[in-house]
């Protein structure tokens, strides 16, 4: 939070000021270093109880201990696998249904209220149902992940299909493109930026639900390890695992953005020429 704020605001205030502002990434690092210092010093100075917030160096050494166990790597793998499978299912379902529903006006009108009803249901409200169906199996968590990520993707794809330029659509029609060609050459590229956004949002939500599922349902993964560490009083280890989860989130976001840039070289937001 603090990082984003310090990094964002001064970067934009170009010109007018006498001294040149630091580059954004440098400010980001300074913010991060500040956070680490606070977390290190506050417990040592006795400002907070070490039982609740151990110094940062303790977390790091706990992390090193974790990294030496096979269980940690196994859990990490379980989490990543659950996340990836869930997100993939949500992406495929969201994109296919989004193009279908968005492409057929009648279907869209019919589905609108259904979507508006189902979408706001928080995924965690489905936990009892998931447990009823699959017990503490990884499929329980998968259900949550898919449900949560699916709506993110679907809604974005629907926006994307809606955004197809009417002139581009008419061009495709005037050259008698078959429906599938229209999807491939006009609808798909237009909706792609939205799909990417859907992917990014879906990836974040999927990770949240994956960890939530593991924490509450107890399906295998880092979330369960966090719960185990907490109940056994290994507070530093618990924080270490939380940091790992946070890092996964950062890496996922970075990858999603890089994929976006590659796929959208032609797009006005990416191509970086002066807008007309």
């Amino acid at each position, binding site marked *: 939070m603090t990082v984003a704020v310090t990094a964002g605001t001064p970067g934009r205030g170009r010109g007018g000021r006498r001294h040149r502002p630091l580059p954004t990434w440098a400010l980001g690092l300074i913010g991060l270093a500040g956070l680490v210092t606070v977390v290190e010093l506050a417990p040592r100075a006795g400002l907070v109880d070490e039982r609740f917030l151990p110094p940062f160096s303790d977390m790091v050494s706990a992390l090193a201990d974790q990294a030496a166990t096979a269980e940690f790597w196994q859990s990490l793998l379980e989490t990543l696998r659950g996340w990836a499978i869930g997100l993939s299912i949500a992406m495929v379902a969201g994109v296919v249904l989004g193009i279908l529903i968005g492409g057929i006006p009648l279907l869209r009108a019919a589905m609108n209220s259904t979507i508006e009803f189902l979408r706001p249901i928080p995924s965690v409200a489905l936990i009892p149902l998931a447990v009823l169906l699959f017990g503490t199996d990884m499929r329980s968590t998968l259900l949550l992940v898919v449900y949560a990520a699916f709506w993110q993707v679907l809604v974005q794809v629907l926006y994307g299909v809606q955004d197809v*330029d009417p*002139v*581009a659509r*008419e*061009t495709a*029609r*005037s*050259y*008698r*493109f*078959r429906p599938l*060609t229209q999807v491939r*050459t*006009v609808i798909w*590229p237009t909706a*792609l930026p939205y799909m990417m956004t859907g992917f990014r949002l879906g990836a974040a939500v999927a990770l949240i639900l994956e960890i939530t599922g593991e924490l509450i349902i107890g399906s295998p993964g880092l979330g369960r390890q966090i719960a185990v560490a907490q109940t056994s009083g290994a507070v530093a280890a618990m924080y270490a695992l939380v940091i790992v989860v946070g890092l996964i989130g950062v890496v996922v976001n970075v990858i999603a953005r890089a994929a976006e840039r590659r796929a959208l070289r*032609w*797009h*006005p937001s990416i*191509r970086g*020429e002066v807008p007309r």
Partner: protein
Amino acid sequence: MTTAPIGAAARPESSTTMLDVRNLKKVYEGRGRSVEAVRDLTFTIASGELVCIVGPSGAGKTTLLRCVAGLLDSTAGEVVLEGERVTGPPPGMAVVFQEYGRSLFPWMTVRQNVELPLKEKKVPKAERQRLVREALEAVGLADAQGAHPWQLSGGMQQRVAIARAVAYEPHLLLMDEPFAAVDAQTRADLEDLVRSLWKRLGVTVLFVTHDIDESVYLGQRVIVLSDSPTVVLEEVTIDLPDERDQLVTRSLPRFAELRAHVYELIQQAKGGHRPAS
């Protein structure tokens, strides 16, 4: 493709009918508001003709073109193309849209844009490559093949849209105010380009414009539309020499006469005058 000798200025009465528009009417139905864009249009265009449609802004020219292209259902009347009633986009037709920038696909290169309709028409690869190359050469963009449309100027984008239409080898080429947004010099060049392509390919061209000079310079015939609700005011035959030149043709006394005539028609229409029917 027609078998008529290329460049022969086909006389309407001596050749076959390409396009027949009969009592076309189009009313846009909106929520609580309906706009009668086109009231009653009837005209025919012979195979191989170059006809300009001129009318004030908002006269329903784009509406007419979209009905002819089968992109819009008419409220009444019919459009018959090569003997068949138009109910959807017919084969062998290409449209150059008024909003040419939005009609090109920004995610494709110039070359891919021009090639795509040919792929969809299942033209064999070698033939396709030849058509794309020739079309881009004809519009002077052979060097821009690998560029994306948004890397080109407005005039260049318009030429890509024309190349795409030309490579498609249509029987009927519909152009909707294609030069409205380019500068005078580019516009003159593009006008000559259209004339030369028309002569070379023997294609029937329906060229919509709101520019009186342009319509007289380009067309063999000019169909003058009233403002909305639209009817045909008059069909003016342009009896200028077939070889047109920006300087020479435009300074002919006959050019000035025709231009003045079309201008008068449109002025009268604004004053509420309608042709006796």
